[in-house]
C-alpha cells in the first residue's frame, strides 16, 4: 500500500477552528433534522440553533490559550480581538434566533431558516478570523448568500422578494468591485496574506502607487457596502423593510460586527503603509454616512426603515473609530458595537412584539402612539432604548459615542468629531419623536402587544444592559482595550 501523499501537510493548531466547525455541523444537523419536524414543532429547530450558538461560546473561550495562533496555512487567525468579536456576534445571533421563534411559528420549513442563520453566523465568524484575501472574500460571500436567502424568506410577500433581489444584485456588484480591488493588491504585492501585503506595500515605489490606491479603494468600497456606508447604503432601507423583522434585527447588528472586525484587521495588517491615503476616504465616507443616516431618518414613517437609517447613522459614528486609527479608536468601535447590539436588539424585540389581529404590525411610527397608556413597562423600556440610541447620558449609547468621539478628537480629528456631534443632535430628533408618540399622544385604534415570555426576557436583558452599561461603562471599555492587545 502506497501512502497517499496529500500536497499539503495536515494543518496545525486545528483546534482554534473548532467553534466554527461546531457551528457548521450544527447548521447541517438543524437543516436535516427539521425535515422530520412537524410544522407546529419547528421551535425545536430554533432552540437547537440557539443552543448551538450558546455552546459555541464556551468552545470559543476554551481556545483562549491558543491566542495568536493561525491555522490553515495562515488563512485563519484567532486572537483576543477575534474572540471578543465572535462573542458579541454569537450573543447577537442567540437574540435573533430566539426572537424568530414566535415570528416563524406559522411558517413551514422553518428549519431552513434557522440553518441559514447558522450559515450566516459561520460566514461572519470566518470574516472575523480572516487573515487572507481569499478567506476574506469567501467568508463574506458565505455570509451574504445566507442573508440574501433570509431576506427573501417570506417568498409569497412581494416586498420581501423584491428586497432580496435588490440586495442580491447590488451585493454582487459590490463583491465584483471588491474582487477587482483584491486583484490589484495581489498584482502589486503578489500576496494574499494580510500581513504579507502590509509588508510588501511598504516597499512599493511610485510606479505601483496608483494600482495600490485603486486596489485599496475598491476593497474599502466592498466593505463599505457591507457596513451600509453611504453612498453604498441604498439597499439597506429596502432590505430592512422587506425582510422578516427578526432578520432585520439580525442583519442590523451581526454583519456590522463582522464587517467592522474584518475592516479593522484589514486596515491594521494590510494597509498601514497607506494610512494617510485611506483616512481621507474613510472621513468622506463617515461624513456622508452620518449625514444620510441621520437626516433621511427624519422623513421616514415606517419604523423599520427609520431604524435602517439609524443603523446607517451609527455606522457613520463608529467609522470615527477607524479614522482615529489607533488602539483607542478600535476599542471604541468594539465598545460601540457591544452597546449597539443591546440597544438595537431591544428595540427590535419590542417591534416584533407589536403584532396583533387585523394585520396590525406595529411597523408605522404612528402605531406607537399612546403606548405608555396601554403598556407602560414596554413604553419605558422603549423610551430608554431610544434615548440610549440618541446618545443621552447616562445610558449606554452615550458611552458608545463618547468612546469613538474621544478617540477621534485625540487623534486630531476635532472638526470631524464636532460635525459628528452635530449630526447626533439631528439624530436625537427622530428618536425623541417616537418617545413623543409613546408618551404624549393618544392611542389610535386598537393597540396590541403579544405577550411572550422569551421576548420579555430579551427586552429586559437589553434594557438593563443599556442602563447598567450607561452607569458603569468602565469594565466594558477596559475589556475592549484588552481585546486589542496583540492586534495593534
Amino acid at each position, binding site marked *: 500500500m502506497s501512502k497517499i501523499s496529500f500536497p499539503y501537510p495536515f494543518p496545525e493548531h486545528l483546534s482554534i477552528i473548532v467553534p466554527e466547525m461546531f457551528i457548521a455541523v450544527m447548521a447541517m444537523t438543524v437543516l436535516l433534522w427539521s425535515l422530520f419536524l412537524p410544522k407546529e414543532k419547528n421551535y425545536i429547530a430554533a432552540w437547537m440553533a440557539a443552543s448551538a450558538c450558546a455552546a459555541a461560546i464556551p468552545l470559543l473561550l476554551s481556545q483562549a490559550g491558543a491566542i495568536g495562533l493561525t491555522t490553515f496555512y495562515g488563512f485563519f487567525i484567532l486572537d483576543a480581538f477575534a474572540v471578543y468579536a465572535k462573542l458579541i456576534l454569537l450573543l447577537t445571533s442567540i437574540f435573533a434566533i430566539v426572537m424568530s421563534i414566535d415570528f416563524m411559528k406559522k411558517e413551514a420549513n422553518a428549519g431552513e431558516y434557522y440553518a441559514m442563520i447558522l450559515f450566516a453566523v459561520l460566514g461572519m465568524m470566518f470574516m472575523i478570523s480572516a487573515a487572507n484575501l481569499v478567506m476574506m472574500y469567501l467568508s463574506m460571500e458565505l455570509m451574504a448568500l445566507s442573508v440574501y436567502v433570509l431576506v427573501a424568506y417570506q417568498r409569497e410577500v412581494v416586498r420581501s422578494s423584491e428586497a432580496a433581489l435588490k440586495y442580491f444584485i447590488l451585493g454582487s456588484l459590490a463583491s465584483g468591485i471588491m474582487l477587482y480591488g483584491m486583484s490589484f493588491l495581489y498584482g502589486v504585492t503578489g500576496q494574499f496574506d494580510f500581513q504579507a501585503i502590509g509588508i510588501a506595500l511598504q516597499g512599493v515605489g511610485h510606479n505601483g502607487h496608483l494600482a495600490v490606491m485603486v486596489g485599496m479603494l475598491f476593497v474599502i468600497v466592498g466593505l463599505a457596502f457591507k457596513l451600509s456606508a453611504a453612498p453604498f447604503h441604498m439597499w439597506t*432601507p429596502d432590505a430592512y423593510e422587506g425582510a422578516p423583522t427578526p432578520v432585520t434585527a439580525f442583519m442590523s447588528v451581526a454583519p456590522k460586527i463582522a464587517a467592522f472586525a474584518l475592516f479593522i484587521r484589514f486596515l491594521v495588517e494590510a494597509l498601514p503603509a497607506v494610512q494617510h*491615503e485611506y483616512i481621507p476616504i474613510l472621513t468622506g465616507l463617515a461624513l456622508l454616512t452620518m449625514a444620510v443616516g441621520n437626516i433621511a431618518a427624519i422623513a421616514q414613517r415606517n419604523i423599520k426603515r427609520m431604524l435602517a437609517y439609524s443603523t446607517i447613522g451609527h455606522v457613520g459614528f463608529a467609522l470615527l473609530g477607524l479614522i482615529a486609527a489607533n488602539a483607542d479608536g478600535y476599542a471604541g468601535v468594539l465598545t460601540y458595537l457591544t452597546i449597539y447590539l443591546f440597544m438595537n436588539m431591544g428595540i427590535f424585540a419590542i417591534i416584533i412584539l407589536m403584532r396583533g389581529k387585523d394585520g396590525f404590525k406595529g411597523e408605522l411610527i404612528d402605531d406607537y402612539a399612546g403606548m405608555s397608556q396601554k403598556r407602560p413597562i414596554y413604553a419605558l423600556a422603549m423610551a430608554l432604548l431610544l434615548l440610549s440610541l440618541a446618545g443621552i447620558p447616562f445610558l449606554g449609547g452615550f458611552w458608545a459615542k463618547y468612546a469613538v468621539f474621544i478617540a477621534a478628537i485625540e487623534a486630531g480629528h476635532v472638526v470631524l468629531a464636532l460635525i459628528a456631534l452635530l449630526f447626533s443632535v439631528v439624530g436625537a430628533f427622530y428618536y425623541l419623536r417616537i418617545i413623543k408618540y409613546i408618551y404624549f399622544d393618544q392611542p389610535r385604534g386598537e393597540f396590541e402587544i403579544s405577550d411572550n415570555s422569551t421576548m420579555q426576557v430579551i427586552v429586559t436583558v437589553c434594557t438593563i444592559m443599556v442602563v447598567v452599561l450607561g452607569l458603569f461603562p468602565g469594565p466594558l471599555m477596559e475589556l475592549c482595550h484588552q481585546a486589542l492587545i496583540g492586534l495593534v
Partner: protein
Amino acid sequence: MVTTHATLSSVELLAIPLLPLLAALVVGLGGKVLKEQLSHWICCVGVILSALLSIHIFSQVADGASFYGNFWTWIVSGKLIIPVGMMIDQLTAVMMITVTIVAACVHVYTIGYMHGDPGYTRFFAYISAFTFAMLVLIMGNNFFTLFFGWEGVGLISYLLIGFWFKRERANVAAMKAFIVNRIGDFGFIIGMIAIWHYFGTLDYHEVFAAMPVFLAHHYALNLGSWEVSAITFICVALFIGAMGKSAQVPLHVWLPDSMEGPTPISALIHAATMVTAGIFMVARLSPLFEFSDTALAFVTITGALTAWICATIGLVQNDIKRVIAYSTCSQLGYMFVACGVSAYGAGIFHLMTHAWFKGLLFLAAGSVIHGVMADQDIRRMGQLRKYMPITYITMLIGALALSGIPPFAGFWSKDLIIEATSVRHMGWVSEFAYWALLSGVFFTAFYTFRMFFLTFHNSDRVPQKTKPHLHESPKVITIPLMILAAGAALTGWWGAKVLNLPGEGGESFFGHSIFVLPQHNPMITLEVMEQSHTTGLWLESGAVIFALTGIALAWIMYFKPSTIPAKMAKSFPALHQFLLDKWRFDELYWSIFVMPARNIGTWLWQQADLAAIDKGIIHGGIINGITVAARKLREMQTGMVYHYAYAMVIGLFGLLTWLALGN
C-alpha cells in the same frame, strides 16, 4: 464639665441628615402609593429620630466630644478637591438640636394643618428634604457643603412658598424669594471663590489654620480706585450671601411675601431655621470676621438698620403672618448686631430662643388662621380667646417671649445682645446700633401686642359666616404648640445656664467653636462689670422698661375698641402710609430693577430670540434645510435597483477622483 475629647460616632452623625433625606425620597417618589397616613408617619418618624439623635449628640458634645472628618470625595476638578465631611462642635450641636426639634414639632403640626390638602404627601416630602438640607448646611466641614445646604434650603423654600402653585401671588412670591436670594448667593459665591483663590482650600479647619499666614501677607484688592483688604472683601461678600438668606435690609423684601406659603413652613423655614443660616454662617466663620473691623461694622449697621426698619413696618401691618414676618426680619437684625459686636454666642443664643418663640407664634397664628377659615386679616378677628383657649395662652407666651419680658426666653437673649452692644466700643456704629435696638424693643413689644390684642381681645369682628366654624384646633396642632410654648418659656433660663453666657467663671459653652479676639469680646467686659457691680440699673433693665412701655401703649390702644389708632393714622397720614407701604422698598426695586430687566428681557425674547434666532436662523436655516434634505434623500431612494447601482458607481468614482486629486 468632663473634658474627654471623645470622637462622635460617624454612623450616628450620618444618620441625622440621612434619615430625613430617606423619608423625603421615599415619600416624594412613592407618595401616591403610600397614601397620606403612611407618608406622614414615615416623615415624622424620620425627623423625630433625627431629633433624638441630635439631642444625644448634643449631650455628648456638652461633655466635650467633637467630630471632624471627611466621608468621601465628592468633586475632583484639577486642584479643586471637594470632600463631603462633617465638623461637629458646640456651635453645630446647638444648631442641630434647634433645627431638628423645631422641624419635628412642625412635622407633627403639619399633620393637622395640611389635612385634606391635595399636595399633602408632596408637602411632607419637601419639609423632610428641607430638614436634610438644613442639617447639611450646619454639619458640613467645608464651604462647599455649606453652599450645598445653602442652595438646598433655598430651593425648597422656593418650592414651599409656591406650594399652592395655582395661586398667582404664591408663584410671584416664590420667584421673588428665589431671585432676591440669588443676589445674595452671588455674593456668597464670590466670597467662596475668593477663599479658594487665597487659601487654595475650602475646608474650614485648613482655612482657619491658614489665617495667620494669610493675614501676614496683607493682601489687598483694588476695586476701581478703592483699595479693600482681602479679608474685608471675603467677609463682606460672604455676608451679602447671609443678607439674602437672612432677609436683611435691603434684601429683606422676599421674607414678608414668603408668607404666601403654608403656615408650617413660615414657622420652620422663614422663622426658625433657614433664615438663621446667615447668622450661623457668620458665627461659624468668626475666625474670619474677627479680623476685619470693616466687615464687623458692616454687619452691625446692616443688622441694626434691619432691626429698626422692619420693626417700624410691623407697627401698622394688618396681616397676622406679615406682622410676625417683619418681626422675624427685625429679630434677625438683632442677631446680626450680636455677631457684629463679636457677641456671636449671644447671637446664636437669640437664634435658638427665637426659633422657639417665633416658631410658636407662627404655628399659633396658623392655628388662628385655621380657625377663622384661612383669613389672615387681624381686622376681621377679635375675642378669639373664647373659642381657642390653648392657642390664646400659647400665643401669649410667645408674644411675651418676643417682647423680651422676663422670665420668657426672648428676654435672656435679647437683653444679652443689647448689653453686649452697649459695652462694645466701635465708635458711632455701636452707639447707633444700641439705640436702634433699644427703640426696636419698644416697637417690637407694641406691634406684637397690637397683633395679639386685636386677635384675641378687642371687639368681636369675625364675619358671621365664619362664626359656626370657630373652634379650638385638634391635638396634632395644639400639642406642638404646647411643646414650643414650654420652650419659649424655658429655653432662655436653660440657655443662660447651659450655654453659660456671658461666661461666668471662664469659658462659655461654645468654647473654641467660636473665635473672638480678646480685645473685641464684649462678654469679657460684661463679666468684669457684673463682678464689680457696675452694670447699673439702666443697662440691666433698660430693655425691659422699653418693652413694658410698648405693651402698655398697645394695651391702651387695642385692648378695648378705641378710636386712638384711627386718630393717630389721621394725624400722620404720610408716615402711616409710608409704613403701610413697607418703606416703599418694593416700589423702588420695581422701578429700578424689575422694570428695566423685564423690558430688556422682553426685547431679547421677542426680537432677538423669537424673531432673529427662532424664525430666522433655526427655523429658516437649520430646520428647513434639514427637512428639505430629508425629503430629497427620501426622493433619491426610488426603489429602482439601477438607481442604487448608479449611486454606488458614482460614489466609487467620486472617491477615486478625490484620491487622485489628493495625490
